């Protein structure tokens, strides 16, 4: 299911697709109906996958973490979608900003989208992920996935919790 980051988790009777399935999902995530997403602690951030591993995604992510620091409780996997994207990240100077903020790039791959390699989220841990699938165990057995945009992932990476990126952005005034 999808909700706005500043919206609460819906009540079971307000969602489509069956109360039993919904409650099972909440139980898996250890969330409750009516919870606010904001401020929920997270453990991993994954920027990557074919969904959000493009140069635009790395530009957005970098724009928010630049001048800030990765939260110490967060393990961050930044995985370009291709070697072309990886090259562009370096050529555009994004890598320097990312490194200064405490982030490193990994080799282009599927990575934590489906946890076929060692990029696995441990059981019970929360990952803010820019991939597009959050099935049970998708990012490793027992892993808990919050799908999000690159900006939401960036905000979580520097604060260590679910954060509205708009709070960290310098909003233009008219």
């Amino acid at each position, binding site marked *: 299911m999808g909700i706005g980051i500043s919206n609460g988790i819906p009540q079971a009777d307000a969602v489509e697709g069956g109360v039993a399935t919904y409650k099972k999902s909440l139980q898996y995530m250890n969330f409750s109906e009516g919870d606010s997403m904001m401020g929920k602690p997270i453990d991993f951030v994954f920027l990557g996958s074919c969904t959000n591993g493009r140069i635009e995604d790395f530009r957005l992510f970098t724009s928010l973490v630049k001048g800030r620091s990765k939260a110490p409780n967060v393990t961050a996997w930044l995985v370009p979608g291709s070697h072309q994207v990886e090259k562009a990240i370096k050529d555009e100077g994004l890598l320097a900003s990312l490194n200064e903020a405490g982030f490193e790039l990994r080799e282009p791959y599927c990575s934590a989208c489906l*946890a*076929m390699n060692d990029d696995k989220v441990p059981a019970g841990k929360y990952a803010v992920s820019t991939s597009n*699938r959050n*099935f049970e*165990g*998708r990012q490793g*057995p*027992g892993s808990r996935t919050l799908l999000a945009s690159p900006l939401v992932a960036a905000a979580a990476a520097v604060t260590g919790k679910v954060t509205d990126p708009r709070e960290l952005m310098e909003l233009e005034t008219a």
Partner: protein
Amino acid sequence: MAYDKFNTLKSSAVPLPIENVDTDQIIPARFLKATERKGFGDNLFRDWRYNSDGTEKKDFVLNNPTYSGKILVGGKNFGSGSSREHAAWAVYDYGFRVVVSSFFADIFRNNCLNIGVLPVQVSAEFLDKILKAIEADPKATFEVSLPEQTITIEGSGESEPFDINVYKKANMLNGFDDIDYLLNISEEIKEFASDRPL
């Protein structure tokens, strides 16, 4: 022949009345790396079937000796999620030849048809009857006739027709995948090609 021919199957069935069973549950990604199709059945429903230490989860239906058979009865929207063909291979390799549901994810359905698993889509009402029949008697048998395109609850005689693409039906009756089909008509292909310019 890519897989065993399918004509008519009489079997008991294994109930898995869970909706939206996705391919990550059918076979988790960490078990996809292999050089041949055999062996995926060992990891079918891996994380529902085994604890992290490798011991069996006693409450999962595949570990319950009460239930057995070549028919798997799933809930609505079976096979959703990633398009991994391994999900269908795992179902076949475990020993199921038929999956019954009231709705199949499209890619999973087609993967099944390509590799010898018959997806039988029935009405929600008939699915409920099948599950009730298994609940009443775990050894209840069902007849799935591909030529007739019907599934029958043998105890009550209740039956429902199902749809299947005519080409896939013919292939499954012959045990053909798409390549087998083309090889089987290679003489006709050669003849057709012989009087046409390259």
